[in-house]
């Protein structure tokens, strides 16, 4: 059994090699422990799930009460024409499951509304719920249940040539954000004691050429900075002119040959090139300061934190080495026996207790290792908080400022958000989407315009939506073209992976994709 386990692990390492280089084994583990819920196996839904099954999430469950129609098969790679009339959730599960045998695929043939009526706690078991092509009412109901249960909710919609995503998560912490262009943490402005001593151990003036040209540029800058500080009242170079002068000082430090021509010292060139960033003052990034000032950070006592860490270590012991039992206590009551026999017996318990404590301590170390990760990433810690759907949709808390300021440009992607809201309204009123059939398009334009005006009025939004967009949204006829669904499929899946793995920073909180112009925008609603 151990052999097959090792073999499976090795083959997974090979299969997942290209993605392990991005999120590591620990990231992969979070994926393999995740259970994703997809609501509605439309093209958008299956494309999202495909990009989660391939990288090896632990399990998925499709919730979908629909049966497969011919139209469904036309745009969905994970349905075939022999499944017309069958349970859509089941048909899609089969073809998605087939992508990766490491993943466990399940389905529930039920509409989300029914589940919300009868068993809302059904959704509590999931790592994340992804809802696709949901009408507004279902979306809001589900949003409320998931918000209370602190289960992340990702809403996705493909409507004609527009893609839409909304992330609903109360608080999402990111230790490893993997920033693209992070500034280095060199402490040249505030060298710590060991660094100072190390700098002291170098004497550039007495070095031979070989050593001089192979001294790290950090040391070079540190040395010249010392000199500068002593000549400038302890003030480092601050503006362009001073930095230029400082660079010149370093340049003059380049060794010259017997003819007075400067030698080729690449390390000095590096030093000069890096002066700008090297002189950046060391400080706590404002994002991290904000975190320090947050309530959650300040309500913990050191006792609380170590208590939970140690408790968790004990739990790990119970689940592993303890085979279901706590660490041995190590004490026995007094009893009739001769000294030797009693002491020997007592020692048996004591030794085991010490051994178990040592094992628990190893677990603590393991947990603390992830704290080491927090230290290494301290500058880049991020917390993402999204408003609830209820807040977004409530007249009292709608984000009017964001909407009106974006709409200063009437062609901004915000117009698509408003149109999607209007189209939802149309559906509520007419139990269908606008322009589904050719003969409807003309008349529906006016009906949709009424919905638009109604929406703007209800939220007191003083914006203008061009008729062109109203016409265009009727033209779409609520179509779900596969290529737009697939774009969202990739985008949404990666955001779900970010939520599951707590690596990389998710968007917040609304994303709009326009396939016509191949542009996108992220909005805060």
């Amino acid at each position: 059994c151990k052999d097959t386990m090792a073999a499976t692990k090795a083959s997974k390492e090979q299969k997942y090699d290209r993605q392990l280089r991005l999120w590591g084994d620990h990231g992969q583990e979070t994926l393999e422990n995740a259970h994703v819920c997809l609501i509605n196996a439309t093209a958008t839904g299956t494309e999202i799930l495909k990009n989660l099954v391939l990288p090896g999430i632990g399990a998925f469950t499709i919730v979908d009460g629909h049966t497969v129609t011919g139209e469904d098969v036309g745009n969905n790679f994970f349905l075939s024409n022999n499944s017309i009339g069958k349970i859509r959730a089941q048909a899609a599960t089969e073809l998605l499951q087939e992508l990766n045998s490491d993943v466990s695929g399940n389905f529930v043939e039920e509409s989300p509304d029914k589940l919300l009526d009868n068993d809302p706690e059904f959704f509590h078991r999931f790592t994340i719920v992804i809802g696709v092509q949901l009408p507004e009412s279902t979306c809001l109901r589900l949003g409320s249940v998931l918000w209370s249960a602190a289960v992340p909710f990702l809403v996705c919609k493909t409507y004609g040539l527009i893609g839409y995503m909304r992330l609903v998560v109360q608080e999402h912490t990111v230790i490893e954000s993997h920033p693209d262009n992070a500034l280095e943490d060199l402490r040249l402005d505030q060298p710590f004691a060991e660094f100072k001593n190390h700098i002291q151990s170098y004497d550039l003036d007495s070095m031979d050429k070989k050593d001089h040209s192979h001294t790290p540029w950090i040391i070079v800058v540190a040395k010249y900075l010392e000199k500068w500080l002593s000549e400038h009242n302890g003030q480092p170079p601050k503006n362009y002119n001073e930095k230029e002068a400082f660079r010149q000082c370093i340049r003059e430090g380049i060794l010259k040959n017997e003819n007075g021509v400067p030698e080729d010292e690449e390390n000095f060139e590096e030093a000069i090139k890096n002066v700008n960033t090297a002189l950046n003052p060391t400080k706590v990034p404002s994002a991290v300061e904000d975190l320090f000032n947050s309530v959650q950070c300040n309500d913990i006592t050191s006792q609380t934190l170590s208590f939970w860490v140690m408790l968790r270590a004990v739990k790990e012991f119970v689940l592993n080495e303890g085979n279901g039992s706590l660490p041995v206590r190590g004490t026995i009551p007094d009893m009739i026996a001769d000294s030797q026999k009693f002491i020997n017996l007592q020692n048996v318990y004591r030794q085991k207790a010490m051994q178990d404590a040592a094992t628990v301590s190893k677990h603590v170390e393991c947990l603390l290792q992830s704290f080491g990760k927090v230290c290494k990433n301290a500058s880049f810690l991020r917390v993402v908080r999204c408003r609830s759907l209820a807040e977004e949709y409530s007249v009292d808390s709608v984000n009017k400022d964001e909407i009106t300021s974006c709409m200063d440009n009437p062609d901004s992607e915000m117009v698509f958000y408003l149109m999607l809201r209007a189209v939802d309204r149309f559906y509520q009123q007419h139990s269908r989407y606008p322009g589904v059939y050719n003969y409807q398009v003309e008349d529906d334009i006016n009906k949709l315009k009424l919905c638009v005006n109604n929406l703007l009025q209800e939220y007191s939004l003083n914006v203008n939506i061009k008729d062109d967009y109203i016409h265009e949204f009727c033209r779409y006829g609520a179509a779900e073209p596969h290529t737009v669904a697939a774009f969202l499929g990739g985008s949404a899946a990666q955001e779900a992976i970010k939520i599951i793995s707590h690596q990389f920073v998710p968007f917040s909180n609304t994303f709009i994709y326009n396939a016509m112009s191949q542009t996108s925008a992220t909005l805060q609603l």
Partner: protein
Amino acid sequence: MADADEPMVVDGGDGHNCEWEGRWNHVKKFLERSGPFTHPDFEPSTEALSGFHNIHVVDMDTIDVSNLNRQFLFRGKDVGRPKADVAADFINSRIPGCCVIPHFKKIQDLDETFYRQFHIIVCGLDSVVARRWMNGMLLSLLVYDDGVLDPGSIIPLIDGGTEGFKGNARVILPGMTACIDCTLELYPPQVNFPMCTIASMPRLPEHCIEYARMLLWPKEKPFGDGVVLDGDDPEHIQWVYQRSLERAAEFNITGVTYRLTQGVVKRIIPAVASTNAVIAAACATEVFKIASSAFIPLNNYMVFNDVDGLYTYTFEAERKENCSACSQVPLDMHFSPTSKLQEVLDYLTESASLQMKSPAITATVEGKNKTLYLQSVASIEQRTRPNLSKTLKELGLADRQELAVADVTTPQTMLFRLCFTS
């Protein structure tokens, strides 16, 4: 992204027996209805229009297990089989009526008669060299009547590429919009570690690995004479890994792992399903737009990055006036008659706008075609090598004379005009 080339055709046909009610519902609305944002020349019609039926796929690779985390047309059982064949089989069986024809070849193994038949070409290639070649091929198919470009000879090229969480998609109308070479500076050349660092002053685990790969392997020939290091052979990688560890131990360098070793030797670029899905979708959207003539296509370059949130940036890459590929003007190169041929060679390989790999230079000297230098055939390389240290004057070259340069980066020979400086 699969290294596939997908020339596509829209078949306005009928009479397929794989039609079913509603099959085209999601697509036909875009073709039957015009709107405020459709192409000004678009004329909607309600004629039955089918999807893409004739697709050719060109790919020289076979399936590797490490492809399976993202290349969704392939399964464990397909490992070792040609990608083109398996992809064609899968799609043909999943999508009734679709006819994908596979070509298990390099793109360079096919000629203009092949490429000329297509309405659109889509590329998901894994190298700039290959992209430039395809770019050059489509440029060579352009027909000019009296200096005017015949639009019928233009085959649009849709190109997509990804690396980790970044990607881009672009639309190229050869002869009209920016081509691959116009924007060559967008692809900075690969940075290799300096040899002195590798040989005597390693600092990073990568330096140790390159040491084992570049210096120890040729010296020790661990698997026999003439056996080239094969990044796909775990025994080879294991050998490099062990020797890298030894090297690292010598210099107190930590961090050499098997995974890192493999990554450095194979120049592995991390890859996930999601980024490839996004870029493939964007490319497919453009194919749809162009094939249906219903929309103005992307103009003309989109970049995507989802490391932090989701970021896209769309811009119009501009044509370069003196583009070495599409400007049709022979490029001037300025050298003194006492410059050595080596300098010309260096210019061709090192210039950011040319970035040639191993150019072969020929010229007409005293009425005869003379190969000045050619690297790819050992005997000719040996024979012409002395020319590199000769001056242009010594080689018999004249001012304003044309030099013809061939290279893997372009299917057509490039013409340069040699301008002598004083």
